């Protein structure tokens, strides 16, 4: 041990990277801890079109994040690839225990984001990686010329359904309501796409198959009628992609910090209920979870961390 960072940022998504950029520019001794790829959710998103200043014709989340990572690097924040196991946030020196080491800091910015919400059907766990996926950019290629189903009706579900049409011969969106929640511009594109079909008022209740996904039961929530969908015998399998929202990555903070349904409430300056601990991005209680709001949160959190440290001195 020994070294005490000014600021440790948990998570290298847009919120964490923006915080790292601002903290670095303020010459805070900063460490960003990320367990997998920079960008988090957005790194696996095929196309963005609503981040101000991005390439207007549309660009991949991966490309955008690569520039964010590069920009953070210019201003000196240290990076570390590790998984946080536990945290001690209450005292003046915060302790972060990771799989490979322990770190200490005067301030912590929690930007751990969220992960995909499971579809919630019977046998789901058995088929993750063998037919069920939450990452179209990772797994779409397996379903070339096969049939694919997408669960959800929001922006992500419809955008990813369109991405999947580049591979699959037919993409059916299964949505529990009778209209989409996605913004109108995305809906229009989807309705025009000849490969996209819809099953309204429907939820997947059960999946099955021999080692790989071959069957599912879809229930109409209005009539209660259940339909068995089976893979085309020539295909022998189909794909099922879930985009029905997110679950906050906040388990490790339970019992230490105030939470609401797993999300962390902050004041408008990103302060949590613990002095010196800030939250930014999708982990926060907020009304709009987007790259642009995550970046804004990160910037504010970093500036507040700097203020907190200078007030200590």
């Amino acid at each position, binding site marked *: 041990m020994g070294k005490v960072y000014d600021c440790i940022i948990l998570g290298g998504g847009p919120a964490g990277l923006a915080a790292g950029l601002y903290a670095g520019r303020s010459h805070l001794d900063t460490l960003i801890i990320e367990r*997998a790829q920079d960008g988090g959710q957005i790194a*696996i998103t095929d196309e963005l079109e609503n981040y101000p200043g991005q390439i207007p014709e549309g660009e991949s989340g991966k490309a955008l994040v690569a520039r964010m990572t590069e920009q953070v690097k210019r201003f000196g924040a240290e990076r570390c690839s590790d998984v946080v196991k536990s945290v001690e946030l209450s005292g003046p020196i915060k302790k972060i225990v990771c799989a490979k080491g322990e770190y200490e800091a005067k301030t912590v910015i929690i930007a751990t984001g969220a992960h995909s919400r499971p579809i919630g059907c019977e046998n789901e766990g058995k088929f*993750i990686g*063998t037919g069920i996926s939450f990452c179209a*950019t990772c*797994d779409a*290629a*397996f379903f070339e010329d096969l049939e694919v189903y997408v669960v959800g009706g929001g922006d992500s579900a419809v955008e990813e359904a369109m991405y999947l049409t580049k591979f699959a011969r037919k993409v059916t969106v299964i949505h529990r309501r009778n209209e989409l929640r996605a913004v109108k511009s995305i809906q229009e594109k989807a309705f025009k796409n000849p490969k996209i079909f819809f099953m309204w008022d429907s939820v997947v209740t059960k999946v099955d198959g021999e080692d790989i996904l071959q069957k599912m039961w879809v229930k109409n929530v209005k009539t209660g009628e259940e339909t068995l969908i089976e893979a085309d015998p020539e295909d022998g399998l189909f794909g099922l992609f879930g985009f029905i929202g997110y679950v906050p990555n906040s388990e490790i903070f339970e019992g230490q910090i105030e939470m609401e349904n797993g999300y962390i409430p902050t004041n408008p300056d990103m302060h949590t209920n613990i002095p010196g601990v800030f939250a930014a991005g999708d982990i926060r209680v907020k009304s709009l979870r987007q790259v642009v709001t995550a970046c804004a949160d990160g910037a504010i959190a970093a500036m507040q961390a700097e203020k907190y440290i200078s007030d200590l001195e």
Partner: protein
Amino acid sequence: MLELTKDTFEAEVLQAEGKVLVDFFGDGCVPCEALMPHVHAFAETYGDKLKFTALNTTKARRLAIAQKVLGLPVIAIYENGVVIDSCVKEDATPENVEAMIKRHI
């Protein structure tokens, strides 16, 4: 790390003597890219005790499906032509992969 193709998979993995680790990845799979340097580092550390290989599934789609790999990343350990252990998707963290390797050396 031995880069496999759909033509060498059979001989290098399924027919191979002893245990073989296969890193299944794909073009455009960002989590795979993030995991790969860790797997390469494990190959440096444990390469004398375990055979390390990698297969780009984008170029071997049918083979991957036949191996019941339909979601990436997958790090699997084969013995006598069958998978005896694996870390799939969210569970394929560097920590879990290293723990799996240690179970088989």
